[in-house]
């Protein structure tokens, strides 16, 4: 990753945080957009995971023999019952490791 990209990303994050603190900004967000923004984190994070689970460098993984799929399902169950983030991630990784070693 380039240094320029890092600075651009930092700029984007700052822009989003500062936007509505700027008094000269007259815009009001439409209610639907405001509501949609509340769902940005879960939907985008899921959209990042989807292709990683399904494909490997552009090729679809075999369904039954896909440790990523079963590992992801296990992660969902773990995350549902264990709300401690670090513990949930570690347990998921152990399960992933077991699947890969089979």
């Amino acid at each position, binding site marked *: 990753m380039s240094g320029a990209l890092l600075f651009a990303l930092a700029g984007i994050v700052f822009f989003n945080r500062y936007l509505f603190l700027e008094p000269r900004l007259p815009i009001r967000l439409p209610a639907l957009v405001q509501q949609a923004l509340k769902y940005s984190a879960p939907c985008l994070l899921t959209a990042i995971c989807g292709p990683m689970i399904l494909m490997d460098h552009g090729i679809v993984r075999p369904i039954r023999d896909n440790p990523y799929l079963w590992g992801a399902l296990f992660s969902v169950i773990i*995350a549902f019952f264990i709300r401690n983030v670090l513990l949930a991630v570690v347990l998921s990784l152990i399960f992933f490791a077991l699947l890969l070693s089979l």
Partner: protein
Amino acid sequence: MFPFCLSVLPWGILAGSMAVQAGLPLWQSIGLSALMFAGAAQLVTLGLVMSGANVVTILITVFFITTQHIIYALPLRNYVSRLALRYRLPIGFLLTDELFALSGGKSAQQPRSVSYLIAAGGFFYVCWVIFSLAGIVMATRIPDLARYHLDLLIIATFITIVVPMVRSISSLLGVVLSLALSMALAYFHVEGALVIAGLSGMFFSALLSRRGEEGL
């Protein structure tokens, strides 16, 4: 303030160590935490860099993943937008989930003072950078087993973030739509699959929750 600070400890360690595992040079690993100061966005960046996404996809995704900060500024707008630029800029930079929660959120009748916002935000910032550094140091000392399966770490982490966020039928259906669309579009090698799938889920959830409110 301290409990909030401690709650980001695992995230800071994760962000720092993941940056090292992703192969970033030291200054960039530190720079991500020191300049972006946004845990989820940092992990997203690393995940996308690792999976070889192009620069435009990375920029657009990080933009949308941090749009929820626009919402955080709304309740503070009345108060903060009247302040001088030298106060607005640091408050903008420091406006994280934690500061938003501390500032009282939507129910705040009496906004916190400028000095409180900047001191609390600055405290979180220092904690975040220190925790990230701890993660960086740990990752450089521990044998880099995770490097080979960093994608697994990313999937496990994101799922752990997403599951507690799904608290209603509308958010569940939005997430399911994003998942299905992201897979289908990636299967057909559609450019910008990620952003299209994410935005579709967001607006689907928003429309559903509106309908739900109208129905009540």
